[in-house]
């Protein structure tokens, strides 16, 4: 739980920089570019009920995700952890018949489910990495610059700089620097997933959502991605959904355990795995069910 000194120094500054949708977006290219100091609650979920058609997927979720920490969501399949993750950047909007019936998700105090929220702006600020690596059928370079080009950035020099920075940030630069123009689909599975991470951080989001990012990777590639998560926590707030409890234990600061659409326990990762308060949590983390 060591707080990076640079972040703690500006604990009171720029708290309200995240404002949707009317206020101008703070410059994303500023060093760090991130307003919330580490440890402060960046995402505040309260009393959230969520429905797929008529079936309720989330029941009264209350959760505060802290800035520049890694928060892990664990739980058996179908417990709602991915659903909650996808609520954070409103990816569930793409699925017909989904709705938030009650409660709020506030990021920097702004309720992202208000009708006047610019979803596109939200998604620029809350990036996402998917379970299955999904690079576009374009070159590596085009993959990384996609998000920036959408924002109208076409300056070759700037794009080059971002590509290098993002690929270095995703620990992929040395492996692909000589073939930036070859297709992203030509990379190995682990490289593809790191490419997707690089693509997500290229637009300098504040929060990165990771939906079981390692479930399709072999142990070596998994180790690399986990290492990467450790580096990324310096700059981003990370929320990771995982089936792999060792992974949650290894790379997260706080862990939330879900069961049947309810948040059972949310605490520091060390406590969840060594001293859970709830019997169900203990049963799950010790492998008795799930």
């Amino acid at each position, binding site marked *: 739980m060591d707080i990076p000194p640079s972040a703690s120094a500006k604990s009171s500054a720029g708290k309200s920089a995240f404002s949707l949708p009317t206020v101008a977006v703070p410059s994303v290219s500023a060093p760090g570019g991130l307003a919330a100091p580490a440890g402060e609650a960046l995402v505040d979920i309260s009393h959230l009920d969520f429905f797929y058609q008529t079936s309720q997927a989330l029941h009264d979720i209350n959760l505060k995700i802290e800035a520049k920490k890694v928060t892990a969501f664990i739980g058996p399949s179908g417990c709602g952890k991915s659903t909650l993750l996808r609520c954070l950047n409103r990816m569930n909007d793409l699925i017909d018949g989904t709705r938030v019936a009650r409660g709020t998700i506030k990021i920097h105090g702004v309720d992202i489910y208000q009708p006047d929220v610019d979803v596109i702006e939200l*998604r620029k600020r809350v990036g996402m990495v998917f379970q299955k690596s999904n690079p576009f059928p374009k070159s590596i370079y085009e993959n990384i610059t*996609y998000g920036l080009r*959408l924002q109208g950035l076409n300056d070759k020099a700037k794009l080059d700089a971002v590509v290098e920075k993002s690929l270095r940030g995703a620990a992929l630069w040395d492996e692909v620097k000589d073939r930036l123009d070859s297709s992203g689909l030509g990379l190995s599975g682990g490289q593809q997933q790191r490419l997707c991470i690089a693509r997500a951080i290229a637009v300098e989001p504040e929060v990165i959502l990771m939906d079981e990012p390692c479930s399709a990777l072999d142990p070596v590639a998994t180790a690399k991605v986990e290492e990467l998560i450790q580096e990324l926590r310096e700059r981003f707030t990370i929320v990771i959904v995982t089936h792999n409890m060792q992974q949650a234990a290894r790379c997260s600061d706080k862990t939330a355990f879900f069961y049947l659409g309810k948040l059972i326990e949310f605490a520091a990762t060390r406590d969840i795995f060594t001293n859970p308060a709830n019997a169900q949590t203990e049963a799950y983390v010790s492998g008795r069910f799930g």
Partner: protein
Amino acid sequence: MSESNSTAAPAAFAVQKRRLRLLGLTLDDTIKAFFGGNAVVAIVVLTLITIFLLREGLGFFTQNSQSLRVYRQAGLEYVDFIRAEVDDHTALTRYLSDLRLRQFTALTETKQLPLEEANAALATFDAFADRFGSTVDPLRSLLSDLTEQATAIKTKFIVTGDKKEERRQLLAEGKTAEAAAVQIEETDFAGELKPLLATLPAFKEGNREFGRALLATLDGAPVMPAPELAVRMGKLKQLTRAYVAGLPAVEHALETWDYTRPIPAWKAVSSFVFGRQWLTASFWQDWYGVIPLFIGSLMVSIVALVLAVPLGVGAAIYINQVATLREQRIIKPCIEFISAIPSVVLGFFGIAVLGQALRALSQVSWLSWMPGFPYSERLNILTAGCLLALIAVPTIFTLAEDALNNVPRAFKEASFALGASRLQTIVKIIVPASLSGIISAVLLGLGRVVGETMVVLLCAGNRIAIPDFTAGLSVVTQPVHTMTGIIAQEMGEVVRGSIHYRALFVVGLVLFALSLLINYVAQGIVRKYRISIG
């Protein structure tokens, strides 16, 4: 069970059993033979059709070669040199009448003169035009004489050919006596052509006189009132001088012409492939050039695709990416239902409604800025193209929608997660990822359109001529005939085995090859650019 096994002697591992046999085949073999047989039938039928098409079609080229030989030997080719010269003069006269029309319009519309006064004002122009036109009269009468002579030679040759055929048939039936009785007079081309060729000095004389007279008339050309018309008159003078300068070349061609020069074999093919005339049942010479029909098919298809591609692909994108489930349930069956309309009904609709409506639309005054508007031909490329578009839309829509559907959902999600709007996602991710499928959808739509017969037969206007491309975009308001249409129209009337009959088969072969090519390219595109999904 296990007890009995342990006590009794171990049973054979696989029990042998008598199988039901039909004609010595087991049931499995019979089923296999049944399905295999169906596949074989398909292959056999395809082979038979191909062989039949080729057998009937390829005979065309020998017959065409023969026809071209007669064209030369009977002197028709010789006469056509002079005819071409006269026709070129006619084209100049047409240019002149166009000029008169422009001047007349200028007088009546801009100067508001009544018709009689306008005509009176053009008296000098008309006198000039008359002089210009009549210069060719001596040549024209010579031409008609020569035409008669050449036709007579050709007829004689054809009669001889018929008699030979008669004798051959009689011999085949074993009637030797009757066969011997058939009088055959071999055509002596050299002798027959003599009077024809003897006119050359007269022609030369007349031709020079004609050139001089034409140039002399030019000096009396009236002065044009408007600069725009003066430019045109200058153009006419220039064209006429070039024409007169080309006259000696015709004489030279006639001097060096030799009826004994053999026709090279490739001429039989090239006169079909590059032939600009499809002229049948003519008293003079039949021409089987596929170009006007090919261009007709091409133009109609292009117009159809220009309309159908945006409609089909656009609808596919809407259904696949934007529409709600409810809209999908309504729109999709509607579009697919279009393909259930019989094409003859569409053609009927085209004649009765669409052609009429489009022509009425073209005559609306504030639409006159559109290219080709207003027009008077009700049945033309545009009418047929609109209806063919309707036929192509379901094909393009269904296949393009499939292609869009095959784009992994993950691409879409990744794009949205990076802050792309729906439009950006469609334009930058979905369409590029499915482009190969969309292109092949368009190509298959093209295949559908090129092969369509009934609609073009009813609605394309059926004028066998290369449309006038100098008209620019308004070329689409001209009538054409198509490859499919000509087969449907003429196949019923031709004599089996005649050159015309075989020419239609070659047109069919061209269509066949075109469809094969389109399908092959479409499949190739899909195979080559199929996206491998992460």
